[in-house]
């Protein structure tokens, strides 16, 4: 069985299929949606808070902008930023975790105590303070969300690394005289990937929700930007008149969360069984 086939085996399970379909649909929505937007998302094109009509398929929002166009444009920022922040968090967190888990010197406790300090700070509070202090640019936002994730990623990766580091093949590499970086990259990282991927789905979801909360509180993206979370915040006042402007973005965020998690679970399950010893030909 080729490595690629093993990696895509998750798509055979029921959950995997549903999750994959959902994620791909949303990805399409986010990436090519803007090309189908009938109106300018920032332009005021109609009477505010109108229910869906032929011209405005999802109605208009509190300022008279077309909800559908804003929906089609609004996924990019929230998902794009969440993916970026999560990826950055993994880059830093996994490196810290690998190093801490592998070394038996004082570096391990030093790194982990630093992580503990970060972990002690409530995420939202941290972001609010950061936004207030360092400004509301996108860079700050991404860095802030990434920082929130780094300690827990480091912990998870460290635990997985410690389990793998005692295996025979790692010792064989040490006996060959391979440097630490090479051992971490070639021997250990591929074997903790399963744990990392299982965690990634949940973490991406958390990033989306943190970003949504920050936007909702007005400290992230600013109007007139089209952003699902911002839309929820902007239009909740008119929910009784025009529920679609709030309901649709909220449902899309929820949908994305579920789809990503289904895929992550299916991947983790398939990785968990691809290399077990029970498939031994005895």
């Amino acid at each position: 069985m080729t490595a690629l086939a093993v990696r895509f085996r998750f798509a055979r399970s029921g959950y995997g299929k549903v999750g994959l379909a959902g994620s791909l649909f949303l990805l399409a929505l986010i990436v090519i949606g803007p090309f189908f937007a009938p109106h300018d998302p920032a332009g005021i094109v109609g009477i505010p808070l109108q229910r869906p009509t032929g011209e405005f398929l999802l109605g208009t929002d509190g300022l008279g902008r077309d909800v559908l166009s804003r929906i089609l444009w609004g996924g990019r920022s929230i998902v794009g930023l969440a993916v970026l922040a999560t990826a950055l968090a993994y880059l830093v967190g996994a490196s810290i975790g690998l190093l801490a888990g592998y070394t038996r010197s004082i570096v391990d406790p030093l790194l982990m105590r630093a992580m503990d300090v970060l972990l002690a700070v409530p995420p939202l509070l941290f972001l609010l303070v950061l936004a207030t202090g360092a400004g509301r640019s996108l860079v700050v936002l991404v860095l802030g969300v990434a920082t929130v994730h780094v300690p827990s990623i480091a912990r998870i990766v460290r635990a997985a690394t410690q389990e793998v580091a005692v295996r025979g093949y790692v010792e064989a590499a040490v006996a060959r005289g391979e440097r630490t970086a090479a051992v971490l990259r070639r021997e250990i990282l591929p074997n903790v990937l399963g744990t990392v991927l299982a965690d990634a789905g949940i973490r991406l979801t958390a990033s989306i929700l943190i970003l949504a909360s920050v936007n909702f509180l007005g400290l992230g993206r600013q109007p007139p930007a089209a952003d699902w979370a911002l839309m929820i915040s902007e239009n909740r006042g008119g929910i009784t008149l025009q529920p679609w402007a709030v309901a649709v973005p909220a449902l899309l965020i929820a949908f994305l969360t579920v789809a990503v998690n289904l895929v992550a679970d299916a991947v983790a399950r398939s990785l968990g069984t691809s290399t077990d010893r029970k498939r031994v030909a005895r």
Partner: protein
Amino acid sequence: MEDVSFRVAPGEVLGLVGESGSGKTTTALALLGYSRPGVRIVGGTLEVAGRVLSGLPEAQVRGYRGRLISYVPQDPAAALNPSVRVGDQVAHMLRRHATRADVERRVAETLELVQLPSSREFRRRFPHQLSGGQQQRVAIAAALVCRPSVVLMDEPTTGLDVVTQANQLAQIALLQQELGLAIVYVSHDLAVVATIANRIAVMYAGRVVEDGPAAQVLSGPRHPYALGLLSSVPDPREPQQLRSIPGVAVGVGDRPTGCAFAPRCAQRVAACVETVPPLEPASDERRVRCFEWRETPALAHESRIPLVSRLEGKAALLSVEELRAEHHGRGGTVVAAVHVSFSIAAGECVALVGESGSGKTTIARCVAGLHAPARGQIVLDRAALAPLAGGRTREARRRIQIVFQNPYDSLNPRHRVAESIARPIRILRGLSRRGAEAEVVELLERVRLPARLAQRFPGELSGGERQRVAVARALAAKPDLVVCDEVTSALDVSVQAAVLELLAELRAELGLALLLITHDLGVVASVADRVLVLEGGVVCEQGPVLPLLSHPEHEYTRRLVAAAPSLTRVPTGIP
């Protein structure tokens, strides 16, 4: 498994022998009327002490378990509940079938029966406060407390060191006589079974292939598989040439039509491939499942001549001088080995023998550069080596290679076999990727593995195959010395013989020196030229294999040799 039938009389021990995948544990559990998840009992009758158990509903059968027929599981540490006191665990079975007042008395009685203290203090201990041997006795006591008629023992001495194992076996023999129990003893270790069984039944691929009185089966097996198995068992007292069975053991799922052993059998005829041979009587008390059983050759042992005489005067390749190795833990420093000195000449095979905790693995790791010694040095060709592999020169790293004990652990599950083997070639000999790949095929051939395995992942290989890949990886660097750390402990007897045979051949072909770490004297007798016996980190005796094993001088060595189970002599390790 299918078509399994046998009888066990009271006071008799039936040894159920087979390797992994033979169905022996499934058979043992089926005698309890129990099947593991995924397995179903679909036919046959089971009668225990006059009561028919087959065909009864689960609830009724459960009532008989422990009372009529009980089970001693394989790993005592895992079989005992770590949160329940020892006395309570033994008493548990009784509580269902006896009154409270009786319980304490019976528990005390049973504990004494297995030679454990019956004091209140002992009964209040937890399993982790007992030694391995004691845990096993508790498990046996729990099985005996209701005085069943039949006891099933599933490899109860696995994981125990040789001396403890000898004691346990003597214990079991005593119990059998005292209580008149019928015992079914499941094991893959023929030497152990030889010491206590009255009758032996050999299983292969889910069927019984031979059964009969132990002495007869062991001295003159009629089924080719039984013959092959017996030729693979190393005898600790007489160095003999091991002959392995060609081919790979067949699991129940891959059984071919006809006789399951036919693909590996030297005596097969056309009929063997078409129909399954029935289990027919070969004599009064013996049955064999083979069409050609009359043609089976006699069991013959080929003696082996260790290399000592040819190596005298040769310069040492590796010498270990006054080695002291320590382990630093939270509880302080433990000295694993002290004042250890020995040397290995080019092409020589030196064995380090000892029980667990004797320091042999630590010494091996020092030689391989995985553990820094506290004192002393390791010298390769008159140049002292840096303590850890990272500090050694590439040449030094190349010339000493190590093969680990656990084949399921020593290969990276994410790398294909070809990549695992090619890595040392690229790192230690500096060849390019393409150059390394070309050699991989050659190396696989050398360890007798088909070239198509190169693109497989370790998860798709059996234990024996993985160990061969590990050997190929060690050979890839073209070393002068290979350290073998208990390389056969995790393997079945016949696979063990195959790997040892391979190592012996490679030594002859390539002039490799071997440092063999093992607790099994049989392995030492079959492969080594010189032996070092370790006890508690100190070398108590060393010398050439033949004289040392036949006339041990040190008291510890004598104990080891006496306790080692062999097919020919009963061990005398009885307290």
